[in-house]
């Protein structure tokens, strides 16, 4: 190589060093100087905080590990960076199946199902543990830590166990969970046992389908077990308890905004139609939407986006519509053992809301809520539910004088004793089909014997 070439090579090498070093040292300045993020709204969690030093922390590595976590987790403009990856980088990995804008993307593990619905739940994929230091439930799925009467928090305690199923199909700009089937007979038997122990109390079962059960395009139906079929099997298996057919009414209204596209929950309108069906079955009064104030969250991106980071969802946020009843009611919140009452609002005050999170609207799961209304009909309802059930609550306030909303996963009392203690006339089991036939079923069973 000539001297001239050597010189040129050296110049290029210097330029290269400067370029890489500029990124390294620029990145260092970016991390050290700019203010760090503290909350990830799209993930609904607090970000890592700088660890406190102690000899114990140091020895077990959590102090040094915590510092690295802090810098990694709280990068300035983290949300913008993640959105950039979701919208501009991730789509470069491949094409949607079907090829066009409406094509399909698959997240997690899926497999095709035979015609007959299997009864075994597949191994769920665990979601990485958060770095946050929030209060989290420990032990089994349905055992919660003692909860104090703190103001409503954004996050909900994490339940350990296999209830998380991360298999999602994104198609037609909508996330659809892939139902793997479950213990249909086990659910029916459990509800029957409740009915047997409760005697004259009315026992209702309203298992709710997911968006996957209603919106799955026919060419992808083989990826999930037929939810309708399992719901029918549940209804057939009930003895004494009454099945409320939410599927039919939701299917009737599926062209309306009854399920979130970017979140695994239903929307308030879906809960409204289901509540109406339930109250009709129970022979109770029900008010239409004119008796509610309509509220909106704009540009809502829910849990499906949080999990998949799909550009199809990111670029198509939705309108989250919910309703506040105009009647007078008092809401008291208790811990999971029905202690430490605290007066709260039925819905989270709008001033506290940000455009993310079903829980921002409907609060949390790890509290027992007691709603006393001015209905004055003497009907007292206990609801055992999962997070789907939260959206039902506003629409039952014209139908029952007292409603006790209990999450079956965070309940530290004997369910039968509790129902008797509050002199309930009706008990409603309302949850999505994943909860009813999946691992959460064990909580429902366990609550009978606590």
């Amino acid at each position: 190589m000539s001297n001239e070439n050597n010189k040129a090579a050296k110049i290029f090498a210097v330029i290269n060093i400067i370029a890489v070093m500029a990124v390294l040292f620029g990145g260092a300045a970016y991390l050290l100087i700019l203010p760090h993020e503290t909350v990830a709204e799209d993930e609904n969690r607090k970000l890592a905080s700088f660890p406190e030093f102690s000899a114990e922390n140091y020895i077990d590595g959590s102090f040094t590990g915590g510092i690295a976590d802090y810098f990694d987790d709280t990068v300035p403009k983290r949300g913008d960076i993640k959105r950039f990856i979701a919208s501009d980088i991730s789509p470069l990995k491949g094409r949607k199946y079907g090829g066009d804008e409406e094509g399909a993307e698959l997240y997690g593990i899926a497999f095709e199902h035979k015609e007959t619905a299997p009864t075994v739940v597949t191994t769920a994929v665990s979601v990485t543990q958060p770095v946050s230091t929030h209060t989290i439930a420990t032990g089994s799925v349905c055992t919660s830590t003692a909860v104090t009467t703190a103001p409503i928090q954004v996050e909900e305690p994490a339940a350990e166990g296999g209830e998380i199923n991360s298999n999602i199909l994104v198609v037609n700009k909508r996330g659809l969970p892939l139902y793997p089937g479950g213990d249909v007979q086990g659910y029916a038997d459990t509800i029957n046992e409740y009915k047997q122990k409760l005697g004259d109390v009315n026992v209702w079962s309203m298992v709710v389908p997911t968006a996957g059960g209603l919106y799955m395009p026919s060419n992808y139906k083989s990826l999930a077990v037929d939810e309708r079929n399992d719901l029918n099997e549940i209804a057939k298996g009930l003895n004494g308890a009454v099945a409320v057919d939410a599927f039919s009414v939701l299917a009737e209204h599926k062209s309306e905004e009854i399920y979130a596209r970017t979140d695994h929950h239903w929307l308030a309108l879906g809960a409204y139609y289901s509540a109406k069906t339930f109250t009709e079955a129970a022979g109770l009064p029900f008010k239409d939407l004119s008796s509610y104030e309509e509220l909106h969250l704009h540009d809502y991106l829910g849990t499906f986006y949080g999990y998949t980071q799909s550009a199809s969802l990111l670029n198509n946020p939705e309108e989250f519509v919910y309703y506040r009843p105009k009647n007078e009611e008092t809401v008291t919140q208790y811990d999971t053992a029905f202690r430490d009452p605290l007066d709260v609002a039925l819905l989270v005050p709008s001033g506290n809301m940000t455009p993310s999170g079903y829980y921002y609207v409907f609060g949390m799961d790890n509290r027992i809520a007691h709603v006393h209304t001015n209905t004055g009909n003497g009907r007292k309802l206990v609801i055992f539910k999962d997070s789907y059930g939260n959206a039902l609550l506003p629409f039952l306030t014209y139908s029952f004088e007292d409603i006790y909303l209990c999450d079956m996963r965070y309940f530290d009392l004997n369910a039968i004793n509790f129902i008797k203690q509050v002199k309930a006339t009706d008990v409603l089991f309302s949850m999505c089909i994943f909860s009813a036939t999946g691992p959460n079923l064990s909580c429902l069973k366990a609550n009978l014997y606590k």
Partner: protein
Amino acid sequence: MVFSRLFFIYIFLPLCLSAYFIARGTNAKNNVLIFFSLVFYAWGEPVYIFLMLFSAAVNYFAGRLIGRFGDSGKSRLTAGLAIFTDLALLGVFKYSGFIMENINSLFSASLPVPDIRLPIGISFYTFQTISYVVDCLWENVSPQKSFRKFLLYISLFPQLVAGPIVRYSTIEKEIDQRHSSIADISCGLNRMVLGLAKKVIIADQLSTVADSLLGGIENATAAAAWAGAAVYALQIYFDFSGYSDIAIGLGRVFGFHFDENFRHPFMCKDITEFWQRWHISLGTFFRDYLLYVPIFGKRRKYGGLFLVWLCTGIWHGASWNFVIWGLYFGLFIFIETLTGKKRMKKIPLVIRHIYSKAVIIVGFGIFYFEDLGRLGTFFRKLFSTEKLIGLQDKILLMNNLYLLILAVILSFPIISGIQKLSGRFCAVRTASSLALPFVSAALLLLSSVMLVDQTSHPFLYFRF
């Protein structure tokens, strides 16, 4: 601490580079490297750092004693004791739980199973210390007189936690005298960035595809089993070779020239060649220190071969699937050895490529499944005719089509091809030289933002 963390890239590394290049003279630079290497290790292992220091001290003194005793029985005894100590530490910290579990299950016993967390990098630094002691015994190297310099060799952070297994002879002279030229620093930084990109942009993305295809093996199709194992093989390649690239690149920035650890292994035509291209530093370690141990008498060629592959397997992890994995490759190498090079070469090239890739893919399936029950299911699925390909497989593969194509292309020697062209054509050289700074900076930035994305831990999702 691991390389693919923002904290390492943007806090630790700039600090280390600054201190290193401010320091004047090799001695001061060595001190900087020792300091940062110990901080690097202690960051992840605040307690086990003493284990590494102990191991370094034992082998340092063994080297000194071997040097003093010369070619004598005392030297061999010293080397034997040092190697025994090294292997005992590895055995206790890596294999004791596995051994006790198997004793319990074999003899229906209920002996306590120790729950010892594996110290980071112990497999790598133990092999380095063993190679050093044996090389001292065989007089391939002169024992290092300075503990500080020996500690630098053992603890040098670029290769400490994920290899390659660097021989003392490779960096013996550079410990005392080295110079980081502009070209070294530039090439080293590029290599480091390339390694990071291979790990973050390719391997980490492939891992979700592999997990999606293999995670539900009980319900997978034959296509999912084959494709999943193939994607996993690519993932491991980009992951491991990416780490090696970072190590080699950082080493070069600091003036060290480590040997290559991967040479495009999927280009191989048979399994013997595959292992000449894959994790070279481990293969050469076993070749040089274990293959011809005289414990098998006249059959030592084949006995040694299976011993090597048993050890190769178990080195990768304390689980039976790794043992099977090692012996599986050993078996094919044994068959190829029996067949002979000449007869192997007579087999049409296409057949050899198909054969080698099929063996490699199945091999990485064995590597993936630590649960032997699921491994058995994987084998059944490979040859299942029930359903060849499912809708979910088609969607997944289509969703990741470009990533998979990119991974396959980049597993070929594209970069060395460009470098060769640069040597021949001035225009290519100028264009690549001009593009390189932008490409490197862009890859570093892209890797970084993807690392930010990886910190995403959706909380409470799907708890209905």
